[in-house]
Structures are given as structure tokens and as C-alpha cells.
């Protein structure tokens, strides 16, 4: 379960490959790909460890954006791309 108030980080099994739309994340354990469809999402994921919670990592965004990026983080957590820190 994704907890927006918990701390997260990129899974150690995951590599990020920059792409023009954002990045491609590959999980070497599950062999799954995820697509991070904006550069901003990539930035947020890279900065996760500097924040006490996922919510704090998106706090600089507007309300609507916060909701949509938290949703994106939830789906990355669901795919095991980001894990509780």
C-alpha cells in the first residue's frame, strides 16, 4: 500500500534511463518497465530521499498537480519502482 505520508526512495533494483519525455524505469527483479512521462516526475523521484514523505516531495506544486503526481508515485510504488525508505 502506498502511504503518501511515508518516506520513499527509488528501489535499489531499478535503473532509470533518461528519455525525451521523462525517463524509463526498469526493475531488474520483476523485469518490468515503467514510463515516467514527465521530466518533473523524474525530478520528484530523484529527490524523494531528501523528503520525509512523498507528500512533502510534491509540496512545491499546485494543488491539482500534487494530486496527479501523488497518483503517479502511487502507481510507481505499486509496481515496486519506488519503495518505503
Amino acid at each position, binding site marked *: 500500500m502506498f502511504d503518501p505520508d511515508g518516506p520513499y526512495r527509488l528501489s535499489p533494483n531499478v535503473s532509470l*534511463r533518461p528519455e525525451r519525455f521523462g525517463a524509463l524505469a*526498469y526493475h*531488474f527483479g520483476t523485469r518490468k*518497465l*515503467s514510463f515516467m*512521462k514527465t521530466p518533473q516526475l523524474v525530478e520528484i523521484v530523484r529527490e524523494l530521499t531528501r523528503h520525509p514523505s512523498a507528500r512533502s516531495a510534491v509540496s512545491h506544486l499546485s494543488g491539482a498537480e500534487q494530486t496527479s503526481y501523488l497518483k*503517479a508515485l502511487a502507481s510507481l510504488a505499486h509496481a515496486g519502482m519506488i519503495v518505503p525508505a
Partner: protein
Amino acid sequence: MNAPLKTSTANTSEVLPLVEQFKYGLDSPICLTWEWTYACNLSCAHCLSASGRRDPDELSTDEIKAVIDELERMQVFYVNVGGGEPTVRPDFWELVAYAVEHNVGIKFSTNGYRIDEEHARWLAATDYVDVQISLDGATPEVNDAVRGPGSYDTAMAAMANLYAAGMRGFKISVVMTSQNIDQLDEFKRIADGFEAQLRITRLRPSGRGADVWDELHPSAEQQWTIYRWLLDHGDEVLTGDSFFHLNALGSEPLPGLNLCGAGRVVCLIDPVGDVYACPFAIHDAFHGGNVREAGFGAVWWDSELFNELRQPQTGGACLSCSAYDACQGGCMAAKFFTGLPLDGPDPECVKGHGEAALAEVDAERTPRPAQDHSKPSAKQQQVLLGLPALRRPDRACDESPLAGMT
């Protein structure tokens, strides 16, 4: 061809859908097929790469390792290794081990020939390796008519070895033909029995597939069968980019990669290092370069052809079709090798436009693949199928320049 396994998307509302992003190409391919040899112990009637005999100019062990190093730097996370039968290379296991040590996962396609108990145990114990066993009939009769006598038993024995070694979720890959479409449930049962993952793909008129395509490609009615079966089971099987042309049959898009990714996300390196936009497109028209010149990246990033493929494509005759958004005009390779224009309908267009267009094509003028390593026995395979041994007039260019040397 081989699309990424299962993908998930971290989406936000205002960005382009993934399919649109893919059209401009990726920094590195995600569906890279790499054929390690043209040699094969079998002579399947529909072989997409017209394999059989080794080419004396195939990449050496060191050359393959150098490309693996480059793929690691390019963050190509996995490749689909095929052939020919890749396991006949004496350095096959060494190369697989080298790749996974360098964070390049390997999924290799095999007819099962070398998957004995010992290799099955090694595979089960090695991370980042996946195996795909080819099977084109759920019964020996149907399978062996296309793949050759004994090939069903070989494949089943390989699967039993993998299962006994504890390997789970390996792939069973089936090319759908007019002969095996009514066996779909049976294939699923076989896969479930081995706790394996069923993968079904489209027969394309590539390599020797061109010679048997008329007889083996599904009828319009059989396309409906595939479409309906996929609506029911699509989430349990892999299809790559095989069936997006069937999306024009209904309003519900099938799971899978719904566009032609050739040169955008899909690519082939052949055994002699030639780079083509797609494994089903071994022809000069889709040749981007050779890894021996300046490596793979130089071709992927800079080849004129690949950059052209990443430009918006015109829909041609398909543009007026109401189903174009769903079907995208189908498979480039299928059009090319049946002699149809690339911006028109797929030969298996579900609206019947392909069939009409095919009627205008002079069969003797359709393009032939750039490489043909067929053994003489490949012709016998067609006889097994009940096909005339020669479907096309022999021409000088049909003969590999290397004939007799291997």
C-alpha cells in the same frame, strides 16, 4: 515482434499518450532482438530470418561482448536473443553469462534443442535470464508439419526440464497460423501445466514466411477467433505488437503494444552485425548500418533511415478509414514483403482492403529478404506442409552469395 513484457505507466493528465511518445523514438530500443547465428538444427517452413546455415562472417565472441558493453552503457536493460538456434553457438552460455554480469538481461528463443537437465538447472539459478520455447502446434502433427519431425517432442522435453529445475514463468511462443488457431485453449493448457507464460504472435511474410504465408496466414474468420480469444484472455498472454491491426474489429483495444515500433522502439541486430529496423524486416530498405562500423549506438541514433521512421507517418489510403486510430494501418514488414505500399492497408486489413490491394500485386515482383541461409532441406519442410516445393521462380538473387561455403 517482441514488445516489452508488461508495462505500466506513471501517468499525469496533460502529457501525450505513450503511443504518441513512442512515435518519436527512444534513446535506446526497448524491444531489441539480436540474432546470434543463422545456423539452426531445424528448417521451419515459416522461419522469419530464413535461417539454416551458419554465416562465416558472424560476429565473434569478442565482437558480441563489445556490443554487450555498449548496450550496458546505453542502458538497454534486456535483449531478445534469437537466431537461427542461438544455443548451437559454442560460446552461447558464456555470452549469456557475460551479458547478465553486465546488466543486460537475456531472453532467448530456442526450439529446446540444448535445454537438457543441466542447462535447465543453470538457467533456473541465473538471474536476468528468461527462456522462450517455440511451439507452433499443440499436437505433434500440427507442430511438426511446420517445424519438422521430432520438434514437438524436443520442445516438450525442454519445457519439462525447465519445470523440473524450478524455472517458472518461462515463455512458450506460438506463431498463429491457419493450422493452429483452433488450438488456442490447448496451448494455454500446456503453458499452465508448466506454470509458463503463453505468448502468441502473428505470422509475417518475412524470410521463408513469405513462401508459406498464403497458405498459413489466418482467414478473416480466424482473425475474429484470435480477436475474441484475446478479449477474453489478453491479460494472461503476451502478444508484443502482433495484433494491433485487429483493433479495427471492435471498440475495445487489445492489450499489447499498439503501434509499429520499427526503428522507434524495435530493432534487430543480425548475426553478421547488420542493424535493421525490425526483426521481420531483413531487407536493404530497412537496413540502418552495421555494428562493426561504429557500434550500435551510432546506427540507432544517427542512421538516416531510423530518423525517417521517427517522423510522423502519413496514413495514405488508410487515412480515410474510420478504424485508422485503432489499427494504425498495421505492420510495415507485412506490407513490404507482400508488395503493398507502406502507407496503405495491411495485407490482413480486417476491412478487406488488404486483400483487394494484394490482388493487384505481381507476386513475382515482391521483395525478397536480404539474407537467406536456408538449407536445401527447407524445401522439404514445405512438402511436409503439403505445399508445392517451390512457390516462386528461382532467381539469381534468391541464392545466398555464401551458398556452398557453410
